[in-house]
């Protein structure tokens, strides 16, 4: 994330442990709080971050311990959030974005992660390369 034009910016790295899912969304929530958003807007952002981070925890590194990266930049009232891993990548992004598509139904995944990210954020882009990793880029404008 090119941070040169942001009013404020933070970057977070943490291990891909499931107990860090709540930590990650709380951190983004605390950072975004400076815009004094509604509880509903904060909850939507935390939910979207939770979805992206949970995917990185579950899918990116299989059983390997490795890092997940979050960048968050604020410009005006726009919040840009990238959730990144250097894991196995997504072979077919279009298919992954489809509602109810999941590769882990046996772990009770609903396949709704990307659908929720798209509903709760204003913009979503997924960049991924097999064997290299995945970046989920999201943007949400916070109302005055």
């Amino acid at each position, binding site marked *: 994330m090119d941070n040169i034009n942001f009013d404020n910016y933070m970057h977070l790295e943490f291990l891909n442990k*499931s107990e860090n899912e709540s930590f990650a969304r709380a951190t983004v929530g605390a950072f975004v709080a400076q815009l004094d958003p509604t509880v*509903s807007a904060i909850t939507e952002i935390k939910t979207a971050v939770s979805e992206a981070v*949970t995917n990185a925890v*579950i899918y990116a590194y299989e059983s390997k311990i490795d890092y997940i990266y979050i960048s968050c930049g604020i410009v005006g009232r726009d919040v840009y959030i990238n959730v990144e891993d250097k894991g196995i990548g997504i072979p077919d992004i279009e298919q992954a974005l489809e509602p109810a598509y999941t590769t882990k139904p046996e772990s*009770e*995944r*609903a396949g*709704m992660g990307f659908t*929720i990210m798209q509903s709760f954020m204003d913009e979503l882009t997924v960049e991924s390369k097999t064997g290299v990793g995945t970046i989920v880029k999201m943007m949400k404008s916070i109302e005055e």
Partner: protein
Amino acid sequence: MKLVYKCIGKNMVVKFIGEIDHHQSKTVREEIDSVIYNDNIKNIIFDFSNVDFMDSSGIGMILGRYKKVEDKDGKIFLVNVRGNLDDIFKISGLYSVAQKYNTVSEALEVV
């Protein structure tokens, strides 16, 4: 996240306290499933009044329990569903297999 439940005949009322995410849902589902099995539960009423946060891991968890009771014509009821949770249930199409009621007692009247 804690889980409080009571069984009324073949009905189980499950109240979540805290955050429902991927990390938390693992233990939650094991706890519920052992009650479904041991008490031969047919219908489940999920009470969300004390849920501070939920993401799509909650959807998977609810659908998983639905599959456990589906065979015996069991039903899933969702009560005290507030704004953001209602959005998630709508987006994920959960209301096609589960019904929303305002309170636990309203749900218990129709089971």
